[in-house]
């Protein structure tokens, strides 16, 4: 049986300090996040720091294929000294490398991911406003939700999916690769030009994704260089006997909510089908990395992609095939594993988008990022007679992702919204109710002064007597409102909670 798809998105944002001659992105990111914490949370009784991240169980160097050191891969570093906090909605907000990063709480379906991803944008926007008061006059921190600076430097938007540990990893790689190579036709955020050395604007004036230029391997552990289509980081943040967490690095950060919804929704269903061994046909590209780029460069979506068996296919054909299988899967098994109602919506919107992409991608200019951005740039080019290498087009591209409300071109385009602003605003503070994020977020809201540290799979409480008490949360589908809501209401103090949990089955 497929594991219920509990999903989260982690986004690294581009950051600049306007009005400063020389700025340090790590310092700017710290200023941004600290300003948000200071503006939103009163000082904690008896403590100077906000609730910190607990690094005890971090092991991003573990490889799903076995011993990482023998594979010659570089394990990602764990940076423990930079600002790193947990929010009452269950999210993690921190400085990663030289970027502000926000990981949404664990969500129970694709629509909730959209909601928390939108809440993350609002959190970043509030952070910018809060930071402006702590900067010298004339300076402003500006954050961009994109994945590249146009000069060969990329930063990621990663997805995480809970999976059944027993499914052979080789099967996951075989069947998820064709989806990852082709889902960009609706998930791409669009980019002017290419950052592959030697490819000019004459060859690639515009491409579907921000990220395809940066992928060099089919499978691997790394995330910062030699990026692989399938990442093998094996760090489940849950019971490792039962679960794996598929860490997906091959997506763009989306402004369009439908793009996020479909990226996460289709991937959740495809992974469930893999777990239930529902995908019989193996679609093996002759050269997956090349195919990923060729799909990204092909705005007409007609380019034949060579398969290992000597035939060819197209990105649209692969997606139609997966949708067809998903429909049969839904009819036979139901979609409870991805949330029944949301799963049905995914199937409807998936078909709608493929139909429109096949007829004319520009029909989707009101719903998906790359057609929206391309239409805007084409109209601008036409009006002013600009060549593709004109800096104003690259500026439009960047500003599409500007998160300042008055400057964001994506907001001005009026793209379809799947979650209303009230719901997204509530998600800034309230955790999802149907995953363990509910327990984490609710404890933080009620007993922040007693929470010493938290992470995905545990919380550490100081209940006034030694030692500190650690509450493990190894089951992502427990700690929900249905599960612990009454317990949390019943307890007056964290000491009571710890005692109750210690004597009961969580």
């Amino acid at each position: 049986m497929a594991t219920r798809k509990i999903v989260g998105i982690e986004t690294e944002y581009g950051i600049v300090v306007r009005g400063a001659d020389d700025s340090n992105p790590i310092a700017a990111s710290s200023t941004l996040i600290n300003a948000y914490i200071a503006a939103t949370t009163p000082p904690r009784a008896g403590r100077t720091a906000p609730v910190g991240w607990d690094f005890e169980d971090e092991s991003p160097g573990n490889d799903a294929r076995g011993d990482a050191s023998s594979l010659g891969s570089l394990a990602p570093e764990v940076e423990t000294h930079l600002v790193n906090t947990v929010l009452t909605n269950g999210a993690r907000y921190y400085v990663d490398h030289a970027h502000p990063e926000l990981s949404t709480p664990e969500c129970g379906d694709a629509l909730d991911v959209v909601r928390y991803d939108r809440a993350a944008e609002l959190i970043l926007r509030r952070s910018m406003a809060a930071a402006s008061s702590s900067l010298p006059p004339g300076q402003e921190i500006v954050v961009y939700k994109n994945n590249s600076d146009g000069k060969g430097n990329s930063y990621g938007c990663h997805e995480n999916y809970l999976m059944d540990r027993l499914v052979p990893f080789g099967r996951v790689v075989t069947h998820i690769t064709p989806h990852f190579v082709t889902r960009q036709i609706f998930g791409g955020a669009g980019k002017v030009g290419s950052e592959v050395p030697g490819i000019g604007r004459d060859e690639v004036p515009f491409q579907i994704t921000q990220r395809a230029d940066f992928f060099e391997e089919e499978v691997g552990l790394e995330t910062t260089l030699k990026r692989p289509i399938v990442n093998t980081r094996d760090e489940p943040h849950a019971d490792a006997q039962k679960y794996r967490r598929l860490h997906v690095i091959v997506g763009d950060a989306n402004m369009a909510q439908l793009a996020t919804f479909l990226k996460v929704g289709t991937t959740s269903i495809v992974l469930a089908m893999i777990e239930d061994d529902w995908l019989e046909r193996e679609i093996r590209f002759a050269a997956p990395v090349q195919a990923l780029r060729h799909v990204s460069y092909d705005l007409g979506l007609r380019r034949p992609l060579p398969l290992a068996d000597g035939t060819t296919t197209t990105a649209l054909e692969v997606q139609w095939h997966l949708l067809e299988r998903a429909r049969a899967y839904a009819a036979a098994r139901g979609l409870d594993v991805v949330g029944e109602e949301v799963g049905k919506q995914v199937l409807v919107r998936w078909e709608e988008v493929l139909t429109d992409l096949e007829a004319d991608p520009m029909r989707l200019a009101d719903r998906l990022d790359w057609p929206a951005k391309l239409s805007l740039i084409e109209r601008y080019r036409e009006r002013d007679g600009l060549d593709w290498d004109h800096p104003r087009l690259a500026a439009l591209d960047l500003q599409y992702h500007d998160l300042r409300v008055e400057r964001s071109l994506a907001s001005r385009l009026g793209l379809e919204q799947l979650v209303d602003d009230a719901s997204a605003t509530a998600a800034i503070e309230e955790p999802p109710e149907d995953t363990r994020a509910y327990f984490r977020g609710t404890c933080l809201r009620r007993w922040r002064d007693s929470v010493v540290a938290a992470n995905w799979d545990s919380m550490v409480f100081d209940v006034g007597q030694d030692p500190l008490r650690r509450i493990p949360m190894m089951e992502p589908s427990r700690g929900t409102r249905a599960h612990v809501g009454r317990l949390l209401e019943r307890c007056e103090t964290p000491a009571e909670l710890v005692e109750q949990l210690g004597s009961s089955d969580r």
Partner: protein
Amino acid sequence: MAEREQIKKPAPSRDEAEVAEAPAKSESGEKIKAELDDLLDEIDEVLETNAEEFVKSYIQKGGE
């Protein structure tokens, strides 16, 4: 669209959908275009004043 013939048609419902939606295409396309024209004027006002400098100075460190 001459390549249309090469595309396999796995689901019959799609053919109907394509036929039904064909007339809507230009209409919605025109509407989007008109809206975009208004938008371009608006965007000129919020676009970074020195595009070349803005693009040049947007430098990020790699992440992840």
